[in-house]
């Protein structure tokens, strides 16, 4: 297998983008990635498009074919990848395999979602369609509801506290306020969301014991990367190439109830382990991580299951500041899903794009992890039933 590098990355600001269609957003992000790679008016061999809901939300299908047409990339091969909230990382994984196999040399991977054009209950219902159609969906369970149940179990088993969850929310919104691509650019304080009389109004329950500020926003957005063989990247890259040093993907039961220990996110552990083994690295080699914090609890639980902290220690690490910029392991210096936003099909690609920006040392000093050489991303599908992880490494030319 050939080693695969990322030579271009592009993203558009996430948020509410009423003026843009899904195809507009995918095209804008893709053009940015093509320009970033120095491919300009050149073609690619294949295109993978990550999207979860266009068929439901926009009544549009075959988005990969549509994007190829928008970008005049014919006759490139084109495939859409739908894997729930892990669609983005799944699409990149497929692109990496295609280049690694030697079959394609240049691959565009774009992820996008347009969720804000429907009312809240429709967006909530759309996301809930990933739950089990017989055993879960009829009851009105939502992904925040799953996270609420999971959080209570975690509190009971590991002594997780609300203050630890709040520490994650405050950190990620602070970083989001510094990220020009973030949906939520608002700094929050513990007083405002927990300690003052106004907190009850500012931060009501969303899915007990989780509150509004434990949740990511519903967002529109898109992101894209360009992949090619590492040896080609070394010769032609305009910017520092980033090696896809390792990836992993694992699945778990569809329903939480059938997991022997519902607090054990086995797919996170296995996907991360595979990624580290392929990269010949350990969690200690990682300089920063972009984790799937759709809910604050997930950043903590993933940081433990991926191997960065022992079980029960992730919340304490967040509260101590170990996961802030300058801490032992900065997590979600992009603001994470919590602040950058969570257009579901775009998220896994956006995590990798943010990782590329970090590894190319392109961010301002208020978000840049000094001397970052190795990054880790984790994209979490369903409620942990399909997880994709990457270890990415800066290549010095």
């Amino acid at each position, binding site marked *: 297998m050939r080693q695969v590098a990322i030579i271009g990355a592009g993203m558009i600001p996430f948020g509410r983008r009423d003026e843009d269609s899904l195809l507009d957003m995918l095209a804008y992000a893709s053009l940015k990635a093509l320009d970033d790679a120095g491919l300009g008016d050149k073609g690619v061999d294949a295109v993978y498009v990550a999207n979860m809901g266009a068929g439901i939300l926009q009544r549009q299908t075959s988005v990969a074919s549509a994007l190829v047409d928008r970008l005049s990339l014919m006759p490139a091969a084109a495939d859409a990848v739908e894997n729930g909230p892990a669609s983005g990382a799944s699409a990149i994984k497929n692109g990496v395999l295609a280049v690694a196999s030697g079959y394609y040399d240049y691959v565009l991977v774009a992820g996008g979602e347009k969720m804000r054009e429907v009312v809240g209950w429709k967006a909530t219902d759309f996301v809930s369609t990933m739950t089990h159609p017989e055993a879960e969906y009829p*009851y009105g369970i939502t992904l925040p*509801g799953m996270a609420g149940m999971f959080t209570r179990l975690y509190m009971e088993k590991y002594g997780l506290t609300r203050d630890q969850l709040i520490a994650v929310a405050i950190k990620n919104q602070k970083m989001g306020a510094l990220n020009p691509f973030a949906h939520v650019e608002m700094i929050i304080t513990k007083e405002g969301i927990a300690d003052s009389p106004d907190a009850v109004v500012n931060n009501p329950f969303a899915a*007990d014991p989780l509150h509004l500020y434990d949740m990511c926003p519903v967002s529109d957005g898109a992101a894209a990367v360009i992949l090619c063989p590492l040896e080609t990247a070394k010769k032609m890259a305009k910017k520092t190439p980033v090696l896809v040093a390792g990836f992993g993907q694992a699945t778990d*039961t569809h329903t939480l*109830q*059938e997991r022997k220990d519902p607090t054990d996110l086995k797919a996170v552990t296995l996907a991360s382990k595979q990624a580290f083994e392929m990269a010949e690295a350990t969690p200690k080699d990682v300089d920063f991580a972009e984790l799937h914090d759709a809910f604050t609890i997930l950043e903590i639980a993933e940081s433990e299951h991926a191997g960065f902290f022992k079980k029960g220690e992730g919340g304490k690490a967040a509260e101590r500041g170990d996961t802030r910029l300058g801490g032992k392991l900065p997590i979600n210096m992009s603001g994470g899903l919590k602040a950058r936003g969570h257009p579901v099909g775009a998220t896994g690609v956006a995590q990798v794009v943010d990782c590329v920006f970090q590894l190319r040392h392109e961010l301002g000093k208020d978000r840049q992890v000094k001397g970052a050489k190795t990054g880790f991303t984790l994209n979490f599908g369903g409620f942990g039933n399909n997880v994709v992880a990457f270890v990415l490494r800066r290549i010095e030319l």
Partner: protein
Amino acid sequence: MSELKITAYVCKSCGRVHYPFHDRCLDCKAREFDQIQPEGPAKLLAYTEIYNLPWGFDVRTLKIGVVEFSNKVRAMGQIDADDIKKLKTGMKLKAFWEPVRKRYGEDVYGLVFR
């Protein structure tokens, strides 16, 4: 307890109880199952109260939980309780088969615990 119209599946090879259905046993991969219904009181394993509801509900919030019946069947359902503070992990609940939502004007039935 009213008749609970869900079917769980016990692996004939290793005895693992499944709900919902799988074509192969989650543990031993065998394909033969005995069908059983949930029996006995339901022990509450996990619960939440959801404030942002999807399509099909005319209530302000929903309390939802996962229980384990005495014959090891685990299932999700709605919880009929006026205050979530009265719930506790491990408490025993009774299960009923009642409307849980409407879809295109028709009642959809499912498990309700109280």
